[in-house]
């Protein structure tokens, strides 16, 4: 047979094949599958081809997302069904020639026939054919891959890729001997006298929880405000920590050991009428109502001019009094020798001395607490 006759036979064969397989909706479009779903232009007519179709064509035809990234050398054209004329050029020249029943199909012939229709398929389509689809993408609804029909080589490659991916995903499972043990939780055992019986069947309401916290809270004993003969308070005999606080632009130091808890200033601080101007009100806390002191007005009423909003309340250890402050810095360890202790403390008994390194006043918090207690007529 001459080349021309060969081409005619091939073309007729493909035409016949396509007229049986293509749908009325999208027969002439290269964008639709035979069953009407979208597919790449490259292998539109091949999805219902014989089982001899190579894996690459089959996958590319049926499902963009399922196509395997096979190397181009593995791509084979073995189908007995001829593709659409428009798709004929999708059978790239890189494919092996397809066997035909009555036509001896050579690679060259296929190439020639495909090149005839090369003008139909755009370069973009060819690019799509060459570029493999990623593995593992979700399948389309109408497409099913029948593994039984896939060539053994491609299937093995598929399997190898899957196994490789699984190994990467679960490294923990590779070492089943590795065990994760929870850290030991040491629960302190309270004496029976301190524990209270509670109904365990019903959850506690919020009020009950607050009440429980308040009853369970046991503040540490108040520090003594006594000063010893060496001119230092009882709590400053050895090296101790101080907390630097800012109050209305003034930096002060407070001994950390004399403090209780630090909490944010409550917006719903309840003022009480008939109190001193340095008394801000009552702040609710888990330990009860904290009587909040306007620290700036208390320590330096002559300098206090403008009202401003405090941010934190620092409670005094053992007492339900708290000092309102603007800022709190990190605690600092200092030596008692680095403080210039006051000698005459008749006036301003709440002032302990001056921190030389920071040039700020050190408050005698225990003495201040005693002073506040004394001023409370209802105490």
């Amino acid at each position, binding site marked *: 047979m001459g080349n021309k006759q060969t081409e005619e036979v091939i073309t007729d064969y493909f035409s016949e094949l396509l007229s049986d397989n293509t749908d009325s909706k999208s027969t002439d479009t290269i964008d639709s599958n035979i069953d009407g779903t979208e597919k790449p232009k490259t292998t539109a007519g091949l999805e219902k081809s014989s089982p001899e179709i190579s894996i690459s064509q089959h996958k590319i035809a049926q499902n963009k997302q399922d196509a395997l990234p096979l190397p181009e050398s593995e791509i084979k054209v073995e189908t007995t069904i001829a593709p659409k004329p428009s798709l004929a050029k999708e059978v790239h020249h890189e494919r092996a020639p397809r066997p035909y029943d009555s036509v001896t199909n050579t690679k060259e012939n296929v190439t020639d026939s495909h090149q005839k229709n090369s003008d139909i398929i755009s370069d973009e389509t060819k690019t799509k054919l060459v570029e493999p689809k990623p593995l593992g993408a979700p399948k389309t609804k109408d497409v099913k891959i029948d593994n039984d029909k896939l060539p053994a080589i491609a299937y093995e490659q598929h399997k190898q890729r899957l196994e490789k991916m699984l190994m990467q995903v679960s490294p923990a499972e590779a070492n089943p001997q590795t065990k994760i043990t929870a850290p030991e939780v040491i629960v302190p055992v309270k004496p029976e006298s301190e524990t209270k019986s509670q109904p365990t069947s019903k959850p506690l309401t919020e009020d009950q929880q*607050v009440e429980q916290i308040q009853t369970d809270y046991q503040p540490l004993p108040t520090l003594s405000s006594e000063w010893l003969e060496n001119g230092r308070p009882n709590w400053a005999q050895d090296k101790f920590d101080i907390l630097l606080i800012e109050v209305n632009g003034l930096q002060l130091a407070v001994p950390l050991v004399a403090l209780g808890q630090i909490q944010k200033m409550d917006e*719903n601080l*309840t*003022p*009480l*009428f*008939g*109190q*001193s101007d340095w*008394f801000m009100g*009552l702040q*609710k806390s888990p330990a*009860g*109502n904290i*009587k909040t002191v306007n620290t700036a007005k208390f320590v330096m009423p002559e300098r206090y001019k403008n009202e401003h909003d405090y941010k934190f309340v620092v409670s005094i250890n053992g007492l339900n009094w708290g000092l309102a402050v603007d800022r709190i810095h990190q605690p600092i360890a200092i030596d008692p020798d680095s403080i210039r202790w006051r000698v005459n403390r008749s006036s301003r008994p709440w002032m302990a001395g001056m921190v030389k390194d920071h040039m700020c006043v050190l408050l005698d918090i225990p003495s201040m607490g005693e002073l*506040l207690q004394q*001023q*409370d*007529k*209802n*105490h």
Partner: protein
Amino acid sequence: MASNTAQKSTSDDPVLQWVTFRLAGETYGVNVMQVQEVLRYTEIAPVPGAPNYVLGIINLRGNVVTVIDTRNRFGLASGEITDNTRVVIIETDGHVIGILVDSVAEVVYLRQSEIETAPNVGNDESAKFIQGVCHKNDELLILIELNKLLTDTEWAELDEV
């Protein structure tokens, strides 16, 4: 029904009812047993020469009732009259007076054990009016002791108004 609730409480921790009202942004409570009625704001006739905490008098079903400026009595800033302003008629030590409040809220039930002592760190005599404080419904109630609202001398002055 309310009295049954009060009777349910133990003698050691009685449940008391308090009429709460708002004044200058805070919630106060008075013993319900001392509250006679709550009236809408009506025109108060000023009385010349009366103490500065006296707003004036009103006619309550033929009876003359003296109305107290509660804000002034508590040392709070003066406020405006609104549609929610009420006159709470109270009875204490045989005296009937009215106190002007911003609004009346509700009656709450409080156990004696829930009432905490309020601080008194000022020199102002008004602090003595506070009987205690109590947390209820995420707010702090300031409980007023009406018996201490006026001294015997001040009661005598009101009788002459």
